[in-house]
C-alpha cells in the first residue's frame, strides 16, 4: 500500500550554513579573535588591499588569510609574501565561500596561533552576499573603474556590509570619479563606514585598519 503524506517543514533554507557561521562567530568572540570577510568584484583590488593590510599588521599580529577563487593559488601566494599565513580554497566553479568551507580550514589549524582572520571571498557582488561565513564584519571593495552605478546596481551586498571601500582613488580625475560611489555607499545604509583607498599608493589603508577596529601600534 502507498500513502501520500505532506510534511510541514517550516525551516529556513540557510539554516545549516547559518548555524555553522554563528558557531564560528561565537568561537572568535570567545577567544577574542578578529574575523573579517572581504567581498568585491574581480579586479576591484581586494588582494592588493589584503597584501597591504598583511604587510602593515604582520609585525604586530598573526594574520591568517583564506582566499576563495575558482582556480589557482595566485592570491594566497601573493598575500603570503606580505607576512600572513594563507590558504587558498578553490571552489571549482562555486561563486562564493560558505561557513562550512571556512570551518574546514579552521579545523586544520589552531585558532589560538593567530590574532586576525580574513577571508577574501570569490570575486563577484552577488552570490557572496547570501552566504554568511561567520565574520564579525563584512567589507565590500569597489573600485572607481567599475563605474558610478556599481553600488546602486548591487544594493544587497552593501546592505549586508559594515564597511564600503572605494578603491583606486589614486586615478581619480576626468574619467573616474569617487564622489558618486562615496555618496551612494553612505546613502544605502546610514551606519556604513566609507573609506577611500588606493591599494597601489597605500592611501587609506591605515584608515581601513582603524575602521576594522584594529590598533596599529606606533612605530618606534
Amino acid at each position, binding site marked *: *500500500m*502507498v*500513502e*501520500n*503524506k*505532506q*510534511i*510541514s*517543514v*517550516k*525551516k*529556513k*533554507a*540557510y*539554516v*545549516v*550554513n*547559518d548555524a555553522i557561521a554563528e558557531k564560528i562567530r561565537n568561537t572568535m568572540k570567545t577567544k577574542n579573535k578578529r574575523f573579517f570577510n572581504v567581498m568585491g568584484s574581480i579586479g576591484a583590488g581586494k588582494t592588493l588591499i589584503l597584501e597591504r593590510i598583511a604587510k602593515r599588521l604582520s609585525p604586530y599580529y598573526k594574520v591568517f588569510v583564506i582566499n576563495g577563487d575558482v582556480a589557482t593559488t595566485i592570491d594566497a601566494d601573493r598575500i603570503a609574501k606580505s607576512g600572513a599565513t594563507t590558504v587558498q580554497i578553490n571552489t571549482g566553479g*562555486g*561563486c*562564493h565561500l*560558505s561557513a562550512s568551507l571556512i570551518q574546514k580550514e579552521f579545523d586544520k589549524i589552531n585558532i589560538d596561533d593567530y590574532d586576525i582572520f580574513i577571508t577574501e571571498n570569490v570575486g563577484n557582488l*552577488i*552570490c557572496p*552576499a*547570501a*552566504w*554568511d561565513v561567520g565574520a564579525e564584519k563584512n567589507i565590500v571593495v569597489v573600485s572607481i573603474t567599475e563605474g558610478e552605478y556599481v553600488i*546602486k546596481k548591487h*544594493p*544587497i551586498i552593501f*546592505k*549586508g556590509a559594515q564597511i564600503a571601500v572605494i578603491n583606486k582613488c589614486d586615478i581619480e580625475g576626468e574619467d573616474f570619479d569617487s564622489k558618486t560611489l562615496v555618496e*551612494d555607499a553612505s*546613502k*544605502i*545604509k*546610514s*551606519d556604513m563606514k566609507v573609506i577611500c583607498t588606493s591599494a597601489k599608493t597605500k592611501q587609506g589603508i591605515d584608515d581601513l585598519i582603524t575602521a576594522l577596529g584594529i590598533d596599529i601600534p606606533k612605530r618606534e
Partner: protein
Amino acid sequence: MHEYSLASAIVTQIEEIIKKYNVIRVKKIIVSASPYEMVIPDLLQEAYKIITHEMEKFKDSELLMEIKAAEITCIECDYTGEPTEEGDPEFAYNFLCPKCGSRDTHINMKQMIIETVDLELSEE
C-alpha cells in the same frame, strides 16, 4: 549561480527529514521567499534538477517557489514587518518604513523557508 548552493542546502535538509519515514519517493517541495531574496526561481529549479537527477528518492520530484511578502527592519524606529510600498527609485532596496516614514531600513534577507514536502510513503 548561488541557486545551486541553495538547492543543495534544501536537498540536504529534505534528505535528513525523510530518514524518519518509510519513503518511496519525494514528490514535491514547496519553499517560500520574498522577491528580494536574490533567487531566480527558474535557476533554483534547474539547480534542483541537476542535483537530484540521479537520486532515486527524488526522481520526478519538483521544487516550487512561492513568493511571499518582504520583511524590513527600520534602523530609525525598529519596526519589523512588511514595507508598504516599493523601494526608493534610486536605491531599490531602501524601503519606506510604514511606521515612521524613514528610508533608512534594512531588508531582511535569507528568509527563504522550506514550507512543505510531499512524500509517497510505503505503509509496510
